[in-house]
């Protein structure tokens, strides 16, 4: 029988921070990271001295391409006065900082360090949309690029396969978008802060003010079905199915479990971590799930001893609307082919039985790719500590939350489970 994965000693999260994700033409990665770092410092209830950090792990995907600067470990180490102690960059495409989190956990669990800082950063706004598309596509495989696939294109293709197999349609994707946009205005760190209805009404008012003919939208789905208001990017992915281009940073302070109470009376504990790798579209087991996510989930569940029904809420990698539906099936929340029905029935809403992406998700919170993995964990931190404000999940006994992060076209997938004890 396969050995159950476990940490040699427990690891706790005692601080978390993120910058407000968005487009910042006049700021760079250092500015974003300092914002996240300062936010993290103020989150450590009993305070701490940054000089006590023994190692830094930083996720970054493609600043090499976007801003022609690689090697962010030492740059950020110097920025926060951490030199000459070690700084390591992790790269797993859009899952880069989920990997930094994982490396930090292992570093503490091994007994080598007691206190480490993990996080991620990405600066994407200095390039054109076409160039960003090209930069992100560096994480796909060569056969996909030769065929002309973009990231929205890959997820568009997965959507056509999913629709064909399970009978879903574009309207089911819209349910995901509408739900994410309903959560986003409740998150002050989100890049977008309007519901679809507010966006629709604002466009109507704008037309009226200009004296132009007003579009006859009355529902969110009518608005999202309008090819002018919601143009196609890569069929069936339309503008409102796609996450935006974003700048930002995130970080977390990890410590050995036995010293966690020196930092806070409300630490979170790493209950389960899992990571998988996947093949390109042509070689994948299936076009309707990600084998790497299923593997990561299996590892995380095995380590934690928990089951999908024990996880009360999750942040999943909704880089595109169809991805959210596939992920909630892959992490076992819903059966294959049932995810889209669960979304339609409201189960994934903030007040549903299984809230998904209460932060607004990548779609609305933003997706500075290297910062996203730890950015997702930041939402778990806020929710489990009861600090999520207007978007706090209305469950008085919130104890366990999870994240699922995806890199490339499913090449690197992770699942992380945090719990309050």
């Amino acid at each position, binding site marked *: 029988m396969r050995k159950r994965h476990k940490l040699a000693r427990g690891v706790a999260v005692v601080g978390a921070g993120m910058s407000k994700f968005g487009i910042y033409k006049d700021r760079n990665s250092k500015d974003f990271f300092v914002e996240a770092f300062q936010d993290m410092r103020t989150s450590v209830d009993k305070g701490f001295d940054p000089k006590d950090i023994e190692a830094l792990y930083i996720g970054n995907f493609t600043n090499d391409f976007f801003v022609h600067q690689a090697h962010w470990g030492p740059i950020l180490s110097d920025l926060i006065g951490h030199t000459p102690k070690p700084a390591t960059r992790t790269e797993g495409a859009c899952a880069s900082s989920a990997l930094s989190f994982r490396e930090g956990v292992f570093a503490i669990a091994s007994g080598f360090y007691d206190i480490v800082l993990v996080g991620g950063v990405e600066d994407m706004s200095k390039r054109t*949309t076409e160039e960003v598309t090209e930069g992100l*596509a560096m994480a796909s495989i060569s056969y*996909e690029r030769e065929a002309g696939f973009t990231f929205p294109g890959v997820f568009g293709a997965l959507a056509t*396969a999913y629709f064909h197999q399970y009978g879903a349609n574009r309207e089911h994707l819209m349910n995901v978008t509408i739900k994410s946009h309903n959560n986003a205005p409740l998150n002050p760190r989100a890049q977008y802060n309007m519901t679809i209805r507010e966006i629709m009404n604002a466009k109507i008012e704008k037309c009226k003010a200009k004296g132009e003919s007003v579009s006859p939208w009355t529902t969110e789905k009518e608005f999202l079905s309008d090819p002018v208001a919601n143009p196609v990017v*890569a069929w069936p992915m339309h503008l409102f199915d796609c996450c935006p281009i974003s700048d930002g940073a995130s970080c977390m302070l990890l410590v050995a479990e036995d010293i966690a109470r020196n930092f806070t009376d409300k630490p979170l504990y790493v209950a389960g971590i899992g990571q998988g790798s996947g093949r390109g579209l*042509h070689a994948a087991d299936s076009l309707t799930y990600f084998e790497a996510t299923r593997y990561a989930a299996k590892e995380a569940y095995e380590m934690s001893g928990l089951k999908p029904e024990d996880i009360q809420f999750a942040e999943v990698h909704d880089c595109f609307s169809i991805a959210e539906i596939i992920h909630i099936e892959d992490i076992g929340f819903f059966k294959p082919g049932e995810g889209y029905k669960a979304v339609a029935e409201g189960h994934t809403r903030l007040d549903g039985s299984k809230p998904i992406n209460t932060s607004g998700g990548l779609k609305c919170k933003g997706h500075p790719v290297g910062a996203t993995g730890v950015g997702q964990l930041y939402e778990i931190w806020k929710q489990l500590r009861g600090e999520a404000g207007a978007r706090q999940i209305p469950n008085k006994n919130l104890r366990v939350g999870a994240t699922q992060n995806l890199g490339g076209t499913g090449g690197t997938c992770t699942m992380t489970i945090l719990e309050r004890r």
Partner: protein
Amino acid sequence: MEDRPFSDNSFQQFLNEEKLMGSRCKICRELFVPPRPFCPKCNNTKMEWVPIKGIGKLSAFTSIFVGPPYMVKEGYDRKHPYIAGVIELEEGPKVDARIEGIDANKPELIKIGTPLAATYLHRGEGAEKKTYLAFKPE
């Protein structure tokens, strides 16, 4: 029959010659398209080249309206979208390819399962000359 290495480079050379080729493990008979130099099923490098008929059906597709710069250079844009797809070959494996001969402006009419046949797109000039695998309705 062929002594070229089982590499991406050889696969591309064959495409340039308008041939679709895969590699088959001599031990377990598993077929790989594009070719692999190593059989991950039975862990060996005993491969042989196999010509692929180039007949298949559409498993998944997308019509891309916002392409990367290298596709824009070929003349594709929001008004001139292109289709990329995954094709399940008659021999079993799947391949990624461009889809030609179908209206990319009407993706809602495209059906999964559509029978397709391989075709070869020769693009670029001089050193940039390259052949791309594509499929079109039979």
